[in-house]
């Protein structure tokens, strides 16, 4: 991506757009876990990915600039809450809040989380399914 040169002696760097992310953004997201796919071209807040593997659902949130101590995760009656806040002087930080309502199929006690390279990954295990085959009951 080439950026044209704009002669401007007071600035040391030239950008085509000087993007200044807002210092604080608070996003209250209340989502039903089995909500239908929204318009993917509209996004508010950081990138969010919902994935499904064989035995769990995975929620990935982009939270660059936050370290582990600055992010708080709580499970409150089937609602997953994420709250993150950096020190006020961090230009790339700010405040973030989000919540997700989880369905009955999630095993809330087994939720684990990992933070790596600014991505928060939450593992939401599925409750073990009732066995598909009927169990035979022997008669004494």
């Amino acid at each position: 991506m080439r950026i044209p040169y704009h002669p401007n002696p007071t600035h040391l760097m030239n950008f085509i757009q000087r993007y200044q992310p807002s210092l604080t953004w608070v996003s209250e997201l209340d989502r039903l876990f089995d909500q239908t796919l929204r318009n993917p071209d509209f996004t508010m807040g950081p990138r969010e990915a919902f994935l499904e593997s064989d035995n769990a659902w995975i929620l990935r949130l982009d939270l660059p600039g936050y370290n582990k101590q600055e992010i708080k995760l709580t499970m409150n009656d089937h609602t997953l809450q994420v709250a993150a806040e950096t020190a006020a002087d961090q230009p790339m930080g700010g405040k973030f809040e989000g919540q997700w309502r989880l369905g009955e199929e999630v095993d809330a006690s087994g939720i684990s989380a990992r933070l790596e390279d600014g991505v928060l990954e939450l593992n939401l295990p599925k409750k073990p399914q009732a066995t598909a085959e009927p169990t035979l009951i022997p008669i004494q």
Partner: protein
Amino acid sequence: MNASMTPTETERLTEASEAIQRPNFHAEENDDGATLQIALPGVHKDDLKLTFQESSLKIEGKRGDSVPENWKTIRDTNAAQHYGLNICLTSRLDGSKTTASYEDGILTLKVPVSEEAKPREIQVS
């Protein structure tokens, strides 16, 4: 649980994941030089590429959080896997002396003012 996406959605996301996205960044300047902070979430330090050529700083990064084959993507607000950013530096800055550090998905670049551009006192004989 909602079903997985339609084939066209999968195509759209695959296409989106190959696009190069401009990352969010913040820039600050003072008398000593400039500091750039670039948000590159999902990029591991080894997948970061920083080059300086002809007064232009180029930042490239590839996210490492791909999705395994047998997983389903239910929702992804931004599937871009590649970041790219080109920054032109004026001659006052010495790009070859850029220092970089990377933590929590934020790349911090410090570019000092070049020696020639610093004010020098001229003695009057």
